[in-house]
């Protein structure tokens, strides 16, 4: 009540706007809580953006921060070099396809799994299954790739030994470009489907039980319940998550690709971020690497904008 009356008092004084100082002092505790986040974004996200200018200049080594402003300006030279390079198209294609396949194959699995787990009568089994499937999410990428290398080794990997036992020829999975995307996508969904299903499980659990009862009274089978009740009820969650994933479509994990690839599979495995790493860090072509990275970010920006727009159109909710 007191709050309300205060508000009334404030609004009763029109024309006297609070100064910035007053606002800050009123919300100082909230501001203080916000400060770390603010600093994080300034220091790690916004300040480094100044480095973008490197993409337009011939960066002088050893000149540090000031070098950003007094290196030779070369305009769009690095961009031209990238688009003239035989790798440009391949890198864009690889980056896009890797994300696209991850989405196509990785997205439906958690939904199916969530439905299966909630429909299961043996509750204890369902719980155990859920725990087991989400644990891999917490294994670090290095370990996952190490496991893949071992299991898939052509000479003593368990997978190839099975293939040989069944009369096949061993396949060198990790050095065959044809296998790179499949392995990346399969291992990626294996690692994350349990974890990603949690949100769908929660959505399904949130459905009013009386709706199931009503359907059962009407004689609906399990399958009909899934198709006509569960899916429509969680469709909003699905669409929201799908749109959010779309925004991140180009964010293929650098670490995993870097750990998995070798010159043998560059044809399908080399993505923009790994190329930028090789050019920039390994070969100190800082200007060129920045230009390629900037191009990559620009494309990513378009995706985020588009998914936000889509989200607003489809679900009515959006980030801005």
């Amino acid at each position: 009540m007191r709050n309300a009356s205060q508000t009334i008092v404030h609004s009763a004084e029109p024309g006297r706007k609070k100064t910035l100082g007053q606002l800050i002092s009123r919300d100082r505790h909230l501001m203080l809580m916000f400060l770390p986040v603010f600093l994080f974004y300034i220091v790690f996200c916004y300040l480094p953006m100044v480095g973008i200018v490197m993409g337009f200049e011939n960066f002088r080594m050893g000149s540090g921060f000031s070098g950003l402003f007094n290196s030779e300006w070369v305009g769009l030279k690095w961009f031209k070099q990238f688009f003239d390079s035989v790798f440009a198209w391949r890198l864009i294609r690889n980056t896009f396809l890797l994300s696209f396949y991850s989405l196509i194959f990785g997205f439906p699995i958690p939904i199916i799994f969530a439905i299966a787990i909630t429909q299961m009568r043996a509750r204890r089994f369902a719980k155990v299954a859920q725990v087991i499937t989400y644990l891999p999410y917490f294994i670090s990428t290095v370990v996952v790739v190490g496991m893949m290398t071992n299991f898939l080794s052509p000479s003593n990997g368990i997978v190839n030994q099975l293939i040989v036992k069944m009369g096949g020829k061993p396949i060198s999975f990790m050095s065959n470009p044809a296998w790179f995307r499949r392995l990346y996508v399969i291992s990626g969904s294996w690692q994350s489907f349990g974890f990603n299903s949690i949100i769908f499980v929660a959505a399904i659990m949130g459905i009013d039980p009386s709706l199931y009862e009503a359907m059962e009274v009407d004689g609906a089978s399990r399958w009909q319940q899934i198709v006509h009740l569960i899916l429509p009820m969680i469709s909003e969650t699905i669409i929201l998550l799908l749109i959010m994933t779309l925004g991140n479509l180009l964010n293929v994990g650098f670490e995993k690709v870097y750990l998995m690839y070798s010159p043998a599979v560059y044809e399908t495995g080399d993505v923009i971020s790994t190329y930028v790493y090789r050019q920039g860090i390994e070969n100190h072509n800082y200007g060129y690497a920045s230009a390629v990275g900037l191009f990559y970010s620009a494309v990513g920006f378009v995706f985020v904008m588009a998914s936000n727009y889509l989200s607003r159109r489809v679900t009515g909710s959006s980030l801005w």
Partner: protein
Amino acid sequence: MKNRILSLVLAVVMLMSVGSIALADELNLAQLPLTTEEGATVSILGMNSWYSTVDLTDAPLLKELADRAGVTIDWTLIDPTVYSDSVSPMLASGKDLPDILEMPDLDLNMDYIKSGMLEPLDTHFDLMPNYVAFLEKNPSIKGSLTADDGHIYYVPQTVVTHSYQPVMMYNMPWLEKLGIEAPTTLDAFVEYLRAIKANDMNGNGDPDDEIPMSIQSAFLPYMFGPAFGLDLVSGFYADDEGVVHYAAYEKEAYKAYLTFLHGLYEEGLLETEFTSLNRDQITSRCANDLTGVTFDFSWQMSNLYSAQYPNYDGTVGIIAGAAPLSGEHEGFYVARNPISGVFGINAKSTNIELAVKFLDYAMSEEAQDLYVWGLEGLTYEVDDTGARHYLPRCTEDTIWYQGLGINAPNMPSQQSTPATDVLLPEWHVKNDREFEVPFMRDPYPTVYSTPDEAAITSMYLVDIQTYVDERAVAFICGYADIETEFDGYIATLEAMQIEELLKVRQAQYDRFAAAL
């Protein structure tokens, strides 16, 4: 009165020190200690030990060196396997760098030199008697290190070039069992591999567990390139007429090379996992007597590979070196360039004079002796004849020995063949002189690029090497068909401006040849 006496004493002291500097100069020696200042510190950025369990921060031998010089070293040591990736960004930022910098590469494009971050050392040569003497003794190294502005910016770390380099190594008991000599031609070599595949060479009753050849993929070009007349190791090479070629762009020879390797791969003589094979795996194969031939740096032959065999007694090699393979061309081994690393001095350092003096002292014969031999009583003893012998612990306890800072990778050390010989068994030294040294051929020389050349090189070379590497694997494994796709490969290299690069390399080679 007091003051006058004091100034007199000071003057005498100063005169004396001038005299002794002059004397030291005559003897071509730096004066020790380098400074009398209390707590003088030199900071150094360098590589840590190649042994992952050894940390050189407190290495006793390096400490001894610092003590003799009268300084304390403030180390920034970085794992050598990630050295370049970690140090390049540090150098690019140019902030808060130590006084002495071990560079991540030889700076052939002069990226660092041009940036002005390094102190031209020749302007301090009055303080560097040891280095000046070294350069006088090694004019070709001096030539390689002189930048196009005439200054010298780096102190080198040098290695042996024509001995203990990568060579063929055979399983000698297996050769004997088959009753043959070590193959010297490609055909005889393939026959040898087939014989291993067909027989139970290790006599364990299983004829299928033998792996004919165990080669890390990086050594395949060393091993087979020369038989096709290619120096794939250097990439660029000059023929007898002084014309520069790029090995992976040799239409006939490189195609033949790939076809040969693809044949080995198809037949199962080159294992399916050859791209990921590493030295540890090969070592364990030796321990189980599973493999017939390998190719590696020669100095691994005795103490690493042969030592794996239970019946190795140190007098006869079990894995031993042999002559290179010949094909249509006479075989050879690829030697290496003497400069393996370079140290520069941070031009922004506030401590340049002391850093220069210390770097020079680190080049001195005294320091070199310390790198190789260590200290009397600690690592070696002197017998009645005055000859030095390593103490047994040096070979028995590798981690301790490496932890001392022996041949430390963060010092401008100079490897030498005699110093390496004493570390190895007699048969190995003999093997090196007989089968390796005579077949060594010089690699493409180390030459600085002019700014224009550097621009062209950095623009095209990386992409070309990436493309060549990945196509090589594809052709060998059969993911790409040599007959139908090789022409496309050559065309792509042309599109990637290989001809432009060849022109640059030709100009550099001509400069080098003219300077000889």
